[in-house]
């Protein structure tokens, strides 16, 4: 269209050097989305693929996604974890269709022409590679210079820590620890402190909004008190909560750490209009909260690991939330709820009950998906416009309170650095 367009700009435009006013086009442009996939998901970053507990036995695999590329996380013959791209080296078929299973016997075989790969992705079988002998003559086969070693599956870099598995398409990617940075790593280790994890199950939702909006949502520490009335009413969010916000040095990752105010009735300390005096639970087992020693203080720590995952601890409910983009306007959001090997039945039941608060139907999560969908709608109708993320100023930095959008500004500071390079 014409370059003079005021409503539909050709190029994304920032008002200033800062990132407190985010152009709506950061969420809507298709070419830019592909660039995000390449620079944020496929290069220079570790992306979440799953939990070791999902593939306990040799040969166990789980099919998942990095960005928009299908990959397989598998426990290989050496009992270590490999991640391979789910694309056959022969003629490109996305050969693995089950989403989980065991391939100890026989490794991976592509159904189209039965090329066979080891669990680690090495090509180990090519039918008719040396042709077929018929009437004393050898027909067909692969060229003499065909080297199976050159035609394995695409093998990703893999890093595991505390039972969590990350992978990267980028052979040059820094170490997982450097990627997280010491601050974030500390909170990561708090949650994944080496105990064996137990899988409680999955929830899956497709949210029709840009994937970054979910990162923002969890980097937006004060919306719970405003959007999620239940949090307030339950005293899970109170204005006198002790709170801290911490980031890695790139400001791409963050941790929201909060500790419930010890004293006072919620309605005395909340300043939030969303508080509903009248509300009483008919059955308060939703809120049977029991502190756990490993918390070491904080009752809730929400970690955003850029770009692909969120780690949730909300009182007794712990889960990973996997972000799987699907174009600029949608992403799949996969929840894996888990527990720990030493949980007793009561604790497991507790985690499962509190799970009612979260996920695609959760009392305090369903509406996050809704506001994301509606934010995307707003962006699409006037792409020339921008958001205003200036609560707590226009700067970026750690804070000891929640009344700020600094984490969002931090994320876009990093985003601009990478995307404008």
């Amino acid at each position, binding site marked *: 269209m014409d370059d003079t367009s005021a409503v539909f700009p050709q190029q994304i435009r920032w008002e200033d050097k800062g990132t407190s006013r985010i152009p709506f086009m950061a969420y809507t442009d298709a070419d830019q989305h592909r660039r995000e996939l390449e620079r944020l998901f496929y290069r220079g970053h570790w992306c979440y693929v799953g939990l070791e507990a999902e593939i306990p036995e040799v040969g166990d695999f789980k099919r998942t996604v990095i960005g928009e590329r299908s990959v397989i996380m598998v426990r290989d013959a050496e009992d270590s974890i490999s991640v391979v791209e789910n694309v056959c080296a022969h003629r490109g078929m996305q050969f693995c269709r089950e989403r*989980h299973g065991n391939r100890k016997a026989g490794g991976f075989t592509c159904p189209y022409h039965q090329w066979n790969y080891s669990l680690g992705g090495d090509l180990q079988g090519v039918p008719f590679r040396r042709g077929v002998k018929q009437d004393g003559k050898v027909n067909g086969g692969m060229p003499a210079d065909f080297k199976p070693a050159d035609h394995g599956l695409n093998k990703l870099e893999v890093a595991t820590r505390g039972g969590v598995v990350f992978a990267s398409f980028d052979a040059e990617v820094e170490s997982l620890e450097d990627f997280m940075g010491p601050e974030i790593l500390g909170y990561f280790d708090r949650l994944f402190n080496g105990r064996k994890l137990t899988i409680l199950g999955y929830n899956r939702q497709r949210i029709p909004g840009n994937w970054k909006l979910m990162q923002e949502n969890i980097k937006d520490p004060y919306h719970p008190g405003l959007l999620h009335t239940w949090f307030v009413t339950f005293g899970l969010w109170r204005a006198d909560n002790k709170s801290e916000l911490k980031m890695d040095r790139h400001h791409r990752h963050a941790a929201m750490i909060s500790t419930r105010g010890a004293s006072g009735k919620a309605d005395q300390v909340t300043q939030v209009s969303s508080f509903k005096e009248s509300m009483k639970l008919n059955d308060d087992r939703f809120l049977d909260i029991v502190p756990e020693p490993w918390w070491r203080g904080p009752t809730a720590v929400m970690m955003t690991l850029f770009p692909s995952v969120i780690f949730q601890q909300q009182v007794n409910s712990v889960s990973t939330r996997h972000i799987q983009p699907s174009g600029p306007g949608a992403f799949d959001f996969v929840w894996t709820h888990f527990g720990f090997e030493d949980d007793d039945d009561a604790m497991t039941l507790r985690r499962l009950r509190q799970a009612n608060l979260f996920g695609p139907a959760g009392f305090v999560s369903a509406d996050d998906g809704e506001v994301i969908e509606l934010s995307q709608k707003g962006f699409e109708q006037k792409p020339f416009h921008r958001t205003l993320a200036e609560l707590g100023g226009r700067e970026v930095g750690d804070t000891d309170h929640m009344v700020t959008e600094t984490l969002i500004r931090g994320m876009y500071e990093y985003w601009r650095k990478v995307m404008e390079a």
Partner: protein
Amino acid sequence: MNFQDYFELTQLYARYAQAVSSGQWELWPEFFTDDCSYRLQPRENHERGFPLATLSFESKGMLKDRVYGIRETLFHDPYYQRHVVGTPLVLKADADRFECEANYAVFRTKLSELSSVFSVGRYIDVVVRTAEGLKFASRQVIYDSEMIPNSVIYPL
């Protein structure tokens, strides 16, 4: 099974389908016993033996709390939903207790939009006779619909 029981059973299913398509969410808990179980669970978790449910309620009180949440606290983009449910398959019929299953399809319509398939799956039910007629002692909603279209707000 005699006709009267069968009639009441089919009417229970039909009335439930009407109620949860009507927007009058207050009607919903009344289909259940006080100590009922209601679970909305992905088929994956159900078949793989994972205990997690998308929603798991253990009493009529919890259902009422859910209705309150829908009405008062859960912000959402409003939508119509429409339940079309197959004939219940009666697996076990005692005098005052019935074990049944039924396939369902629920369609969602947002304002100014086309209707679309929202959730399909299976009800696994225990129905008991009470003073107020037949009620669900237990209703498991096991859904095929792998990827939830954003969120589930209203009862399925």
